[in-house]
């Protein structure tokens, strides 16, 4: 079996094992897996309303996945997508309600604000990594909680102790009557187009620009990149900043599309951490991210139908997602298994 086939097989096998183990968990817990999975299926593809909302759910997942994947390509682990997303969310919501502008300026401005806010939050980690050799994983974890508490405090300050900001102006909203009409009043919005554009942007940066070549080179081998005259530090900071930009835009999707405001959060949204799963499953490639985000976004939204339709707690899907992450991360053992299998076949 060629390497390429194995690389494709690892995520697919992981998904299949994840779903099988999920079914076993349901069976052991006294639930009916067939009923569970069919409830999941209708929760995703049931009618135009659920399809609309599924696509809406996929949107921030694509951006969170891009953020993690982009950093990974430069050899960085951005586990702080969650925090960057929260900061971006707040920035977009603030620009959305605090200023009034024509739509053609307002939406781009709110998007840029979110991207800049997320980029800044990630820049901190990149800067500390480049200047002080601090491991970005720990810094971004710490920045996640810092972001959560700061965003909550700012929302409280902006609203005199309220729980959510004002609703954003119509001119900053990504929602449209057209999308709502064709999807039976779902909250589908134009964010999906922005997300897909960003996928193209990531592909363009990595594959078609000198800078992208340098970023990847640093990811492959820092010493070699340094020897070739590339500035490792500059590329680390840049990679984190771009990664944070994607994450911030993910927050903008929630602010300008789904929720139309920013509210106080008791805990994380989970999108940032699921972004790690998305990137991992998509092998950190732009196209792979679309695939991973579609899978996990669909599962996540479809799971909401499970308690009603089948009486199964929706957390079963989070269990499945966590298991898939385990299996993809343990790809080494799946590879070994596959190689043994193909050797056996050759022997016959």
């Amino acid at each position, binding site marked *: 079996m060629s390497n390429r086939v194995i690389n494709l097989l690892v995520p697919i096998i992981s998904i299949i094992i994840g779903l099988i183990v999920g079914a076993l968990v349901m069976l052991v*817990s006294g639930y009916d897996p067939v009923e569970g999975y069919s409830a999941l299926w209708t929760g995703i593809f049931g009618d135009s309303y659920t399809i609309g909302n599924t696509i809406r759910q996929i949107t921030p997942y694509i951006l969170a996945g891009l953020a993690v994947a982009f950093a990974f390509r430069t050899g960085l682990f951005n586990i702080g997508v969650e925090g960057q997303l929260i900061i971006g969310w707040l920035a977009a919501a603030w620009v959305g309600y605090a200023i009034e502008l024509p739509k053609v300026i307002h939406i781009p401005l709110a998007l840029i604000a979110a991207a800049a806010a997320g980029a800044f939050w990630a820049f901190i980690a990149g800067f500390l990594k480049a200047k002080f050799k601090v491991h970005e994983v720990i*810094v971004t974890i*710490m920045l996640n909680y810092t972001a959560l508490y700061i965003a909550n405090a700012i929302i409280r300050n902006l609203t005199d102790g309220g729980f959510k900001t004002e609703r954003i102006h119509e001119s900053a909203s990504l929602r449209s009557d057209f999308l709502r009409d064709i999807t039976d009043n779902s909250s589908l919005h134009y964010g999906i187009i922005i997300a897909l554009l960003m996928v193209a942007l990531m592909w363009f940066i990595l594959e078609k620009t000198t800078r992208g070549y340098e970023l990847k080179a640093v990811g492959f081998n820092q010493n070699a990149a340094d020897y070739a005259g590339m500035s490792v530090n500059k590329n680390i900071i840049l990679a984190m900043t771009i990664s944070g930009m994607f994450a911030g835009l993910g927050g903008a999707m929630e602010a300008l599309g789904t929720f139309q405001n920013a509210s106080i959060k008791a805990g994380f949204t989970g999108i940032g951490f699921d972004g790690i799963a998305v990137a991992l499953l998509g092998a950190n490639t732009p196209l792979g991210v679309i695939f991973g985000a579609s899978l996990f976004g669909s599962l996540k939204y479809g799971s909401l139908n499970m308690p009603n339709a089948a009486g199964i707690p929706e*957390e079963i899907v989070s269990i499945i997602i*966590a298991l898939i992450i*385990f299996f993809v*991360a*343990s790809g*080494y*053992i799946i590879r070994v298994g596959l190689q043994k299998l193909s050797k056996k076949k050759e022997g016959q």
Partner: protein
Amino acid sequence: MSFLEMLYFIIPSAILYATPLIFTAIGGVFSERSGVVNIGLEGLMIVGAFVGIYVNLEYGAQFGAATVWIAMLAAVVIGAIFSLFHAVAAISFRADQTVSGVAINLLGLAVSVFLVKMIYGKGQTDMISHPINRFAIPYLKDIPFFGPLLFRDVYSTSILAFAVVIAAWFIIYKTPFGLRLRAVGEHPMAADTMGVNVNKMRYIAVMISGALGGLGGAAYAQTITHDFSHATIAGQGFMAIAAMIFGKWHPVGALGAALFFGLAQTLSIAGSQIPYVQEIPAVYLQILPYVLTILALAGFIGKASAPKASGQPYIKGKR
């Protein structure tokens, strides 16, 4: 409130909030000292909190006052077993340790909430009827100043936490096991050459971190929240990681950092009732542990550096 009364209120409360952090951070010290990064402490605490509350609710009537100890023992055992997911993935299957830790966090939360909904039919358990109560230590509580400060409102878990710190320090620095543990985390190949079973040591260390993480979660739930829901453990595991780093991967350092973070948590929660502190917006106290950790790592507050081999799987024969 006079200054003394304020101290008598803040210090016991800080120790209370620090206790779960101490357990979990010590667990982290074991794991990282052996070379396995454990981002999954949060998930292990969640599992421990759930198991603790579940056992307390189900067997409270049967065991009465001893329930809390049985609940914590159960949390220790289940925590150790649950951490095997991380151990198998990170050590045997050579998975990226950060990724596998993230998966542990997702899995711990998902499994716990799933089970709560399955068993109780709702997202939150009832309040336990046998929480861990504070007590006063006879004689010691009558010492002027230190009595009311340290011995009047004591939780048994806090005493256990201090014992765990001393035990951890002794094990890591004064026993052959501890020497091997540190060797495996600093230079696994050298340790292997000397006949130390690297993977076995790492398995043991990760399971200790699982046990202590579970204990931390159970202690938190049974002393502070008294029930379990998805938001019971909200960042304490990550704060324990912060305490471990801020304490420079040393048990006593982790203890100091955990106490300090406990103080910050207390002030952010109860600060509005305390003169002077109420002037400080709570957000500064909430982010303090995390910001300090970043500063410590950046070298502004003494350089903190991780064990050399932490984060890398050990592959025999690879240079």
